Each structure stands twice: as C-alpha cells, then as structure tokens.
C-alpha cells in the first residue's frame, strides 16, 4: 500500500477520534449545563436509584448449584446445533446418506439427553441425593402467602440463602 494512502486512512481515523472526543466533551460541559435541572445536590441524589426497590445484601451470593448443572447441560446441547446448520444448508443436494449421518448424530445426542434425564439432572427438584425439607421454598418458587389485596400466587418468594447453603 502506498505510504500516502496509508496516512490518509489513518487521518480519517484521527478525525473521527477528535470529533468523537469533542462531541462528548461539548455535550457534558456546554449543552448539559443548559439542559439539566438547577436543583442542588442532596443526600437522596447519591443513592443508587431514586426509585424502585432498595437493594439489600450483596450481588455476589452463591447461586444454587442446580443452575450450573442446567447451564452446563444447556450449553452442550445448544452448541451441538452448530453442526446442523451447515448440514441443513446443503441437505437437499447431499441425499439420503447425509440425512442418515445427521440422524445418527442427533441420535447420539438423544442418548445423552436420555441419560441426563434418567439420572435426574434436568429435574428442577433433583430425583436423587436431595430431599426437600418441609416448609422451605426452593429459589424462584412461587409461594402462597396470603397478603392483603394482592393475589397470593404473584408474589415470588425471595430465595433464602439458607436453602442454598443447606445443599
């Protein structure tokens, strides 16, 4: 590539960079000053949200380990589809042999699915190893706590860390 073309190309980028930076600064300093409200800084301004639920606890809580199992299983089956896309694109021209091969592929995946199904790994309440304790709710489960004026079933229970810990 000739040197001046190269320089020109980079000049374009430079111009973009300069304009981008100017745009942001101009908006923040000049335009923003004209538009934003003139109220003074108060205590309430520094909270995370000025509306909605107050947050509690840390976001770095332990998730129930079942999420991982499900996610891992999902990831595998999800990604295997990548092999079916190219096959699907040319399936018609390839004829019955390719169809059989894809069927064998899906069949093998089916055996895998049957396996985890049978072993209880995709049940939301595992069929093995874990017995549910009475009176405790599982994360995300709907509870039927009667409350005034609100239909009971619409209140999602807050996942109690104790349940996750108990596992």
């Amino acid at each position: 590539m000739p040197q001046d073309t190269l320089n020109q190309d980079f000049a374009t980028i430079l111009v973009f960079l300069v304009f981008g930076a100017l745009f942001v600064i101009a908006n923040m300093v000049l335009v923003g000053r004209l538009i934003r409200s003139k109220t003074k800084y108060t205590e309430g301004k520094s909270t995370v949200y000025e509306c909605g639920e107050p947050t509690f606890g840390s976001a770095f809580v332990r998730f129930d380990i079942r999420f991982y199992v499900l996610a891992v299983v999902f990831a595998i089956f999800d990604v295997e589809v990548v092999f079916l896309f190219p096959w699907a694109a040319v399936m018609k021209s390839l004829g019955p042999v390719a169809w059989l091969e894809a069927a064998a592929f899906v069949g093998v995946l089916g055996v895998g699915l049957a396996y985890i199904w049978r072993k209880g790994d995709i049940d939301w309440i595992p069929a093995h190893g874990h017995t549910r304790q009475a009176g405790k709710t599982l994360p995300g489960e709907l509870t039927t706590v009667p409350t005034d004026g609100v239909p009971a079933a619409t209140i999602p229970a807050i996942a109690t860390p104790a349940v996750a810990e108990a596992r």
Partner: protein
Amino acid sequence: MLPQVTTAHYIVLSALLFAIGLFGVVTRKNVVVILMGLELMLNAANLAFVAFSRHHGNLQGQVFTFFVIAVAAAEAAVALSILMALFRLKGSVTLDDATELKG
C-alpha cells in the same frame, strides 16, 4: 474513505485477544475467571481460522471453527463440573486453595 480491512487486521486483533486471554489466565487465581480467559484464547484462534479461511478461499478454517466452538463448550462443561466438585469439598474456587497435593 475508511481503510479496507485486510487479513492482517484480523490477525492482529486475534493476537491481541489471545494475549489478553493469556494474561487473564496467568494473572487470575479464580478458576472461573481463568475459564473466561481461556474462552477468549479459543475465540482468538477461531477468529484467526476464519480470517485465514477467507484469505485462502477454502472452507477448512471455517469448518475447524465449528469444531472448536463445540470443543470449547465441552471444555467449559468438563471444567465447571470438576470445579463444582472442588467447590463442594473446599468451599472455594481459587487455585491458591488447591494445596492438598505437593512435594
């Protein structure tokens, strides 16, 4: 006019991604974060394969990418399941706590 994106651009990007991933792998102690770095390294290789595939005008690099994607998913699955076992036993997913075996 913007410069045309050549194969070299892709390769530089891919090398950068690879370096960032490797940096994360080497410097982090948390195994989950290391896995993220690994994912970055694999995808850097993917990018290089696809770019070279386009450059050479054959499909082999793209085909390889499909397989790498599947392998990466398998890797995540295997690593996470072993990690879960470690977590159950030790209550931690940092490599610093894996000190049972040494000598």
